[in-house]
């Protein structure tokens, strides 16, 4: 998994040229893999939707009209209207802001916190490491969806609390991943060398361990974004996500569920949005993993 193992001690120039080669190779591989490219383009598209939502939407996503409830898709309302007469297309467009930012927030915070804790734990070792790992393993053994649900319920229903709950439950995964990397790197020649040259422990953690633990964490994080969007949608589905009138895809599918037999469009479009977004992040993450995985690259 670790990218830099082949050259334990390298000059700065070597590292630089290696890195640029690596980046070049990376893009070469992405281009070679149509699915990764597909994932990346959908992500790009979704990011545009998210940024330009106010211009892409045809209606005010929160404007209600109780007399125009649950209308089928038409020229005026491309995806139909919901149970209080809001335009579903505009709500799906604005919903991208919630779902995608949840994905980035959770993965970003859990990834950073988890990596730091994991690297720290792995490099100090001893009793502290044991304690942290015991705690991590315990949290990991609680059914994660149930823990997330209970935590979100405890914090109170809001999108932020849902994000917080998912983040807290995700952190231990990164702790374990980063610690594994740190343990491996700690024994590497160049870290040992740095230590003998008198580099401080913090310097080592910061420069060598964290940096080298990063690639697998990044891969895991990319893969996690899709999963996080799904979990957030599931929380929204059981009423623990964004609050009205904010448009959020999971909540929309959940509400639409009450109307699904006669008003299929209500759940269909936000559900498709979840599916497509989550798929694109997973395709991209999958592709990146294959590219960075030295086991397969070497062969």
């Amino acid at each position, binding site marked *: 998994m670790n990218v830099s193992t082949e050259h334990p001690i390298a000059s700065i120039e070597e590292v630089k040229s290696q890195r640029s080669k690596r980046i070049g190779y990376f893009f070469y591989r992405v281009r*070679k*893999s*149509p*699915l990764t490219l597909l994932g990346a383009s959908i992500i790009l598209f979704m990011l545009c939707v998210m940024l330009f939502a106010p211009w892409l939407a045809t209606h005010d996503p929160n404007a209600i009209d109780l007399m125009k409830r649950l209308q089928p898709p038409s020229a005026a309302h491309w995806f139909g209207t919901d149970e209080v007469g809001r335009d579903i297309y505009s709500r799906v467009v604005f919903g991208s802001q919630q779902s995608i930012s949840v994905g980035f927030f959770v993965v970003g915070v859990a990834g950073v916190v988890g990596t730091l804790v994991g690297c720290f734990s792995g490099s100090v070792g001893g009793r502290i490491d044991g304690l942290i790992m*015991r*705690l991590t*393993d*315990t*949290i990991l*053994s*609680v*059914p*994660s*969806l*149930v*823990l997330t*649900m*209970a*935590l979100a*319920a*405890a*914090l*109170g229903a809001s999108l932020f609390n849902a994000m917080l709950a998912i983040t807290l439950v995700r952190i231990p995964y990164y702790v374990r991943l980063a610690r594994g990397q740190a343990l491996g790197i700690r024994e590497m020649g160049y870290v040992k060398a740095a230590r003998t040259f008198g580099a401080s422990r913090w310097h080592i953690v910061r420069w060598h361990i964290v940096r080298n633990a990063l690639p697998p964490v990044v891969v895991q994080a990319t893969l996690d974004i*899709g*999963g996080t969007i*799904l979990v957030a*949608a*599931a929380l929204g*589905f*059981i009423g623990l996500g964004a609050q009205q009138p904010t448009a959020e895809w*999971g909540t929309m*599918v959940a509400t639409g*569920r009450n109307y*699904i*037999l006669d008003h*299929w469009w209500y*759940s269909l479009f936000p*559900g498709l949005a*979840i*599916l497509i977004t*989550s*798929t694109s*992040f*997973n*395709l991209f993450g*999958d592709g990146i993993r294959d590219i960075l995985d030295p*086991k*397969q690259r070497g*062969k």
Partner: protein
Amino acid sequence: MSALQLIRKRLLGLLVVVLGVSVITFTVSHLIPGDPARLIAGEKATEEIVQNIRVQLGLDQPLHIQYFSYLKNLLSGDLGTSIRTTQPVLDDLAAFFPATLELAIVALLFASVVGIPLGVLSAVYKDKPLDHFVRLISVTGISTPAFWLGLGVILVFYGKLGMLPGGGRIGEGLAPQLNATGFYLIDTLLEGNFSGFISALKHIALPAFTLGFVHLGVVARQIRSSMLEQLQEDYIRTAKASGASKWSIIFKQALPNALIPSVTVIGLALGDLLYGAVLTETVFAWPGMGAYVVNSIQALDFPAVMGFAIVVSFAYVIVNLIVDLVYMLIDPRISGVN
């Protein structure tokens, strides 16, 4: 490490896990605002009545005392009494657990039966259109909101086509009298109740498909990557050189070896399926633990939520252990798993 050592180590670890899980779930479930006594008493009840119920349930005690009395009971195998159903939690879970396990196993079977061949094809045709296509399917599976897919298949297969039942576990009056395994598919066959078996099979088809589809990608991905490794090995080259046919090499030699590392992943998927069933069960009115725990969370039924978490973590550790033992068994090269 010998098998016995492994078992001893894991069982010791189990104690720690149960302790940790109980602390975490106890804390989190008590953080949820709301008063279970009030829920039982009913909205119109006076404070006096609510207080009285609190006393009856021991909810008036300080939290740490509540926790320790819970723990004491737990050590003697008592998971407490459900606030919502007023029945022992263990009895409730025992009634629901087999349904969940049956669903999870059938879903896993479906995911493996479809996912393994897909994974093999994907590896053999690496980077060809077929590989991309298979990967697209498996990634789509992982990315599908199960509750949404469930609604869809009910709508199509029950609502529009009328081919399969839309909910429940078995047809009216067909439930097996025998309770040998708790699995309707097995119990009906054991008592020779063939129409009951067909009915159970029809009822499990849609939920198992929904749940299995989501995990199909996990299986296919795992098989693909271990197949890729195997196909690089020397013995495959030797076999090729000796003129054996391509597919016979793949299925007779590469696949069995590729399956060994996959056992862990697929086995662990069973653990995921157990609690992944939570939302699927709700959609399909499947009488399992998932629907029970969702209702319990909403009713602030702490003992039930904790009981669920403990039982599932327990099952998870046991499944892990079994997987590792199987692993040792089929791959004697590996003496220890850690």
